[in-house]
Structure formats: structure tokens, C-alpha cells
């Protein structure tokens, strides 16, 4: 019997058995090696990464007037090491146009800001939020695994923040987003926290309640349209903005008769457009992204009932690739007020022109989305907060996590590239200025971007 089996094995494995045995041997060696490496780790954690209790007060308090009560732990940056912050933005996939400028602006801000109490600042490997909740969650888990990290600039997309913000903030870190605009992440401005609000989450981007209201006021008051339709793509950002627009428009006395959704990846928009065309709306608001926005802009005028409707979009489509399409001519776009003019970031002393010049020099192209200024301000706010909540003791830098939040909560009248920033109780720090532009020619995108026809509030 056993001989039979041996025969079978030698027959079947004639060509492979020596390799197979060698492979097994190597694998078992590797496994043993890994085991040895793994075992002692939990016993000896990195000394610098443990949050420590506040140091016993010596005769002369080295803390000075650094903010914080130590309740969220104190991070020690050893002499010669760097202060760790992270960038978490959509840097791959179709929404990379939004995240890449954010990340690059953060890099520029760190370079302009310089050291914090003589310690350099390290952004680590840029992380990707993939513009999805799964991506946000995975990246947030990577971030919180490193206990040296003080704060995160990100995410790019509201959908990613919903998953990432709780993880990051529960670890005692802060998160400042340059481009999340969903009202659910902060508040409704009436004192009610949004359903996805986390303590320790801040943003320098506007709240979409303002953007929805801006578009509604512009449409109702300036264009004189009282019957509108809206299309979203199921994403929390687009859905939230369409809803904010609808509520504001109906409050003004208009009616939003057709609200429908499409799917990301759809190309034939005629059915969805026909659905809203049945109400003969005077305007169609579609706060979505490319490429679906391209298809709506191209197909809407061919659908009976929509030929003369105003086409309106939001900051998601306020990108060069979309503005360069002739189909987008004649459209109106709401978005953050990007006429930064002579605004100066008070922490670095740089203005928008200087930053844009540095950006162009480093990357050979202008930013592809309008939130680079918000990202720059977010980074300098974070660095200011770290500076205010840290002190040097025995050659090491000690950062009080609670102090970082304390500083951000108290930000008021901060002069940034995007205007004057003040943080409210729910983390909304933006200047909340929205403009509507009228896009006249796809040949001169810059002229259109500066062609502001309405400002709100």
C-alpha cells in the first residue's frame, strides 16, 4: 500500500518534488524568522511613540504657555526627528484632479512654513483616499497605526471623510479637510451637528448649505427662474448639494420638480434627462463630476423640454478639462470664491501669486481644482496649532494633542489665502464665500473663471 502511494507521489511529483521540498523548506525558514521578529515587538514599543502623562512639574515649567491639558496624550519628538503630519487626498483614479493640487499645496505650505520650534515637519508618504469610504477607511487605519502623527490634511472627498474622520479623531489626532463640503460632516449652522460630525474634525472648505443657497439665490433672484430640476450621482457630496439647493430654492418660493439620480459610469443620460424634462424646468442643476457631467452637458440640449433650460453645475465640474469643452459654454458654476487677490497667509507671508508660481515651477502646470488655497491654509493652521501646543524639553519636542484642538477651536480672524478664517463649534473654519461664474468661451478658461456674476453671501 505505502509503496503504491510512494509510487504515485514519485510519478505525480516527478518533475516538481525537489523544488517543492526546497520551497517548503524556505517557507518554513521564513515563517520561523518572521515569528522571531514578531514576538518581542509588543513588549518593546517605540519609546518615542507612546503618549505620556504630562511631565511632573519641575521648579521651572518648561511648557511655558503651551496650550493643552494633556488629556489626549503628549507626543514626544526626539531631537533630530521630525514632526509627523499626513496628507490624505484623492490622488489616483478619476478624481485625482481634485486631490493632487491639495497634496501639492500642503507640501508647499510645509516648505514655506519652515520648522516648528526648530523641528522639521514631515508629511510622510502621501496617502490616497480613493474618493470613497473604503479608501478613506483603509488610509485612516494606516495613519492611526503611527502614534507619532499629530494631524491629517484631508480628505478630498466627503464620502471618504465619513469613514476616515472618526478613526483619525478617536486616535487623538486632528483632521483638517481642504475640500470636504458635505453639511453632514459639520453642522447645519443652526447648532445641530451633522450626522457624521466628529470632535477634532475641521475644514477650510465651505459648507454646501452655503453653496446650495448661493446657487438657489442666483437662479431665483438673478436669472428669474422659479422651476428647476436637479440631478445627482448618488455620492454624498452630490446628493447633499442637490438637496441643499432644493431646500434653499423652495424656501425662496421656487419649485424643484424633478430630482433624479444617475450612476457613476453612466454615459447615456437621455433617460434621466427625459425624466426631469417632463416638468419643463427652466434650469437644470447637476453638481456632479467628470465624465458624467460631460455627458449631461452634451445631451441635455438634445432632449425635448430642456433645449432652453439653464445648465448649472458646482465646484466638482469647475475644472479645466470640463471648461475646455464647447458643450460647457453658457453654463453657470458655483464654487468657492477663488479671487484670492492680495490675501496673505499670515503664517508664511505668502500670497496666492507667489504660491501659484512655486506650484507651477514644481509641477509644470497650474492646479487642476480650486481647493489648493484651502489646502495651503489648512496646513498652516495645523502647523500653527502644533507650534502653539508644543514646547522643547530636554532637547525633545513635546506636543500636547489636546492643545492642538484647543488652538484650532479658538481660531478667529485668521488671515489665509482663501480669506478670513474662523472656526465654529463644529469645525467649519472657511470664509464661506461662494461665487457664481458665467462660462462664456471654452477657448478662454481663465477669463471665465474670473467672470464672477454673483457673490454670496
Amino acid at each position, binding site marked *: 500500500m505505502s509503496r503504491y502511494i510512494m509510487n504515485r507521489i514519485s510519478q505525480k511529483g516527478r518533475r516538481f518534488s525537489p523544488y517543492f521540498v526546497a520551497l517548503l523548506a524556505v517557507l518554513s525558514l521564513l515563517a520561523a524568522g518572521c515569528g522571531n521578529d514578531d514576538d518581542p515587538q509588543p513588549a518593546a514599543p517605540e519609546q518615542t511613540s507612546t503618549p505620556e502623562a504630562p511631565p511632573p512639574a519641575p521648579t521651572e515649567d518648561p511648557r511655558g504657555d503651551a496650550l493643552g491639558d494633556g488629556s489626549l496624550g503628549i507626543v514626544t519628538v526626539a531631537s533630530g526627528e521630525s514632526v509627523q503630519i499626513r496628507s490624505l487626498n484623492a490622488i*489616483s*483614479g*478619476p478624481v*485625482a*484632479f481634485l486631490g493632487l493640487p491639495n497634496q501639492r499645496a500642503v507640501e508647499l505650505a510645509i516648505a514655506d512654513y519652515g520648522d516648528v520650534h526648530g523641528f522639521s515637519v514631515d508629511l510622510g508618504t502621501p496617502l490616497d483616499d480613493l474618493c470613497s469610504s473604503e479608501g478613506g477607511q483603509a488610509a485612516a487605519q494606516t495613519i492611526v497605526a503611527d502614534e507619532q502623527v499629530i494631524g491629517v490634511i484631508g480628505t478630498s472627498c466627503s464620502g471618504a471623510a465619513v469613514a476616515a474622520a472618526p478613526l483619525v479623531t478617536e486616535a487623538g489626532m486632528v483632521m483638517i479637510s481642504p475640500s470636504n463640503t458635505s453639511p453632514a460632516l459639520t453642522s447645519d449652522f443652526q447648532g445641530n451637528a451633522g450626522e457624521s460630525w466628529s470632535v477634532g474634525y475641521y475644514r477650510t472648505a465651505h459648507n454646501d448649505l452655503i453653496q446650495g443657497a448661493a446657487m438657489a439665490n442666483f437662479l431665483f433672484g438673478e436669472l428669474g427662474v422659479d422651476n428647476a430640476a436637479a440631478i445627482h450621482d*448618488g455620492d454624498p457630496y452630490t446628493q447633499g448639494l442637490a438637496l441643499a439647493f432644493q431646500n434653499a430654492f423652495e424656501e425662496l418660493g421656487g419649485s424643484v420638480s424633478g430630482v*433624479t*439620480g*444617475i*450612476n457613476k*459610469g*453612466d*454615459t*447615456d443620460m*437621455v*433617460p*434621466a434627462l*427625459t*425624466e426631469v*424634462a*417632463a*416638468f419643463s424646468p427652466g434650469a437644470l442643476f447637476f453638481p456632479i463630476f*467628470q*465624465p458624467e457631467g*460631460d*455627458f449631461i452637458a*452634451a445631451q441635455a440640449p*438634445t*432632449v*425635448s*423640454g430642456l433645449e432652453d433650460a439653464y445648465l448649472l453645475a458646482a465646484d466638482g465640474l469647475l475644472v479645466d*478639462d*470640463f471648461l*475646455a*469643452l*464647447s*458643450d460647457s459654454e453658457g453654463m453657470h458654476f458655483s464654487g468657492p470664491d477663488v479671487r484670492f487677490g492680495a490675501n496673505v497667509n499670515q503664517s508664511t507671508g505668502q500670497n496666492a501669486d507667489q504660491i501659484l508660481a512655486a506650484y507651477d515651477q514644481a509641477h509644470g502646470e497650474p492646479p*487642476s481644482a480650486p481647493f489648493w488655497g484651502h489646502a495651503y491654509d489648512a496646513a498652516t493652521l495645523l502647523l500653527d496649532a502644533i507650534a502653539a501646543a508644543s514646547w522643547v524639553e530636554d532637547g525633545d519636542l513635546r506636543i500636547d494633542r489636546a492643545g492642538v484642538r484647543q488652538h484650532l477651536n479658538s481660531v478667529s480672524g485668521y488671515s489665509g489665502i482663501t480669506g478670513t478664517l474662523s472656526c465654529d463649534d463644529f469645525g467649519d473654519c472657511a470664509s464661506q464665500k461662494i461665487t457664481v461664474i458665467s462660462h462664456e468661451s471654452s477657448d478662454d478658461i481663465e477669463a471665465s473663471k474670473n467672470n464672477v456674476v454673483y457673490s454670496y453671501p
Partner: protein
Amino acid sequence: MQLTTKQRTKVDWFLTILRVIALVVICAGFAAFVAQMIDSQNPFARWANPDAINLTGEQFQGLVVTGLAQGAMYGLIALGYSMVYGVLGFINFAHGEVFMVGAMTGAVTSSKLAEAGYWESSFVLCLVLVVVLSMVVCTVTAVLMERVAYRPLRGKPRLIPLITSIGVSFFLQNSVLALLGSTVKSYPDLPDWLTDKRTFLEIQGSKILVVVVAALAMAGLWYLVEKTKTGKAMRAVAEDAEIASLMGIDVNRIIVKTFAVGGAMAGVAGILWGLLFRSVIHTTGFLPGIKAFSSAVVGGIGNLGGSMAGGLTIGVAESLGPLMILEPLGVSGPSQLRDAVAFAVLIIVLLVRPSGIFGERLPPEERT
């Protein structure tokens, strides 16, 4: 396999119930729609959805035309799936990406031509050039794919090339992403005669063009397969590769030709896509690929005419279904369910006619 009533199993009952439910839902939705169109105030029109909308004749026609144009494109892509399946008996999932490569090639070359000013001055010549280039690139891609990924797996169980094709699909998608970046590539503006609505039935020129080109490609393919020597050889290989090689047919060569023809069809479809929708991104091939595969199955896989008919069926169904059946039934956001409608058509067809509308054409050993 005719079962008497006594022999019916629980599965058969379950399937019958499913068929009846599908039929009832479709009929109810359609009846409500018809009732609405006859008189929007009649009570039957509003029993399920008090806010039901009315379509004007023009809007209805718009839906049908756009569905036909989209369906013709699914059909063109489906031809590639069907041909490879007919000859090799496996599903080449990467075919949708070959189509995307064609659309991308078109976008890149046409914008270069537009920059140089030729696109506007001699549009037809440019279009021909772009189509030819796209066909060449797609053919090369398809042939390389066969040589590198599938030929080494010839004779292996069919699951193996199937999974390989999914890998090839990701490889192509990410190669395009790495080469051309993640931004949306757009075709330059088309001349007025393509974008304006024609006097004939008020249909956009580009949609007419898509349907006409699809019909021509279909006819050419039919001629190739049914009337030429190569076609005869293809059919022989499909029938029995071993015996075909005994008869002096170079099987590898025929298989390469099959992939090449399928690739060329995908190239044409890619350009038509560009003319119709104008924007392309590296993930463009995925969903149309899956829908085209469904079209091939709906029409009867391996059956060329069936693939085209299947494409038109799915295209029109996903265009009309949401507003004609789901909306009158009170489903909210019906347009978001258009993919569901497309795949529901696949399921319903498989429930009623498991071999597709026109019946599949398979090698004899696979026929049941």
C-alpha cells in the same frame, strides 16, 4: 429533456413562479404607462404613482433613438465576444478594454488633428484616418493579447483563460491609466451635420451614423464568416478544431484572425462611442463590455446576428425601461436603475429561453 407534470421538481416550480412575477411586473408597469399616455387623469394611470409623468411623443422618440444607438454599439462590441466564444469556447472579458483602447486612440489622435487644424478643415478624411488607426491599434492589441495571454493556455480547462482574461482586462486598464493619465479625454467638436438634429425625424446625425456603421460592420462580418474561405475555416474550427487541422486548416492562424476581426470591430465601436459621447476615460470599457457580453448571451452566444439583436434589445430596454415600467410603478429614482434593467433583461431572457433569443451556436461537444 421533456418533463411531465409529475416529474417537475421544486426548482422548476420556482423558475415558473419567477417567470410569472417578471411577466406581471412588466405588464403592470407597461399597462400603467399606456393608461397614462391615453389619459393622464384616468385612475389606472395613477394607481401606483400619483406623480407619474407623461412623455411627449418627441421625448419617447428620443429615448428610442438613443437606445438604438447605444444598443448598436453594444452589438458591435458583442460581435467580438461572440466570435471568440464561437471559435474558442471561452469568454474574453478583456474585449471591453480593447474597445476602450480604440476609443482612447481616437481621442488622442483626433485632438492632435484638431490642434493642427485638420479636424475642422477636412473632417471626413480625418475621421477615416482615426477609424483606421483605431482599428489597427485594437487589432494589434487583440492579437498580442491572444499570443501572450491565451495561446499558452490553449487546451487547458476553459476556466483558466477566462480568469486570465479578467487579469488582461485589469492590465490594459492600468496600462492606459499609466500611459495617458487619469483625466477625461475628450473628442474635439464635431461638425454641425453630426450634432444638429436632422430634418429627417429630428434625429441627431451622429446617432444615425452609429446605426448605419453598425449595420455595415455587421453585414461585412456576415459576408466574411458566411461567404469567404477564411469564414469557412473559422466555422470549421468552431465546429471541431482537431478535425479542421486534419483537413489542412492552420488553427492558430484562424484563431489569430478571429481575434483580429473582433479587435477591429471594437476599434470601430470605440470611435463611434467617441462620436456619440465625446468623453473617454480609462474605465470606459468596463460597463459597456459587461453589457455587450450580456447582449451576446441575450441574442444567443456564438450567433453573430443574435449578438447585434441582443445589443439592440438591451440598449432599448435600458433606455425605455426606467420610464416606461419602473416610473409608472412608483419606483423612485428610476434612472439610477437602468443597469438593473439591462441585467434584468438578461435574466428574464435566460429564464424564458436559456439559449438566447436566436439560439446559441456552439461546438458540437458543448451542445446539450
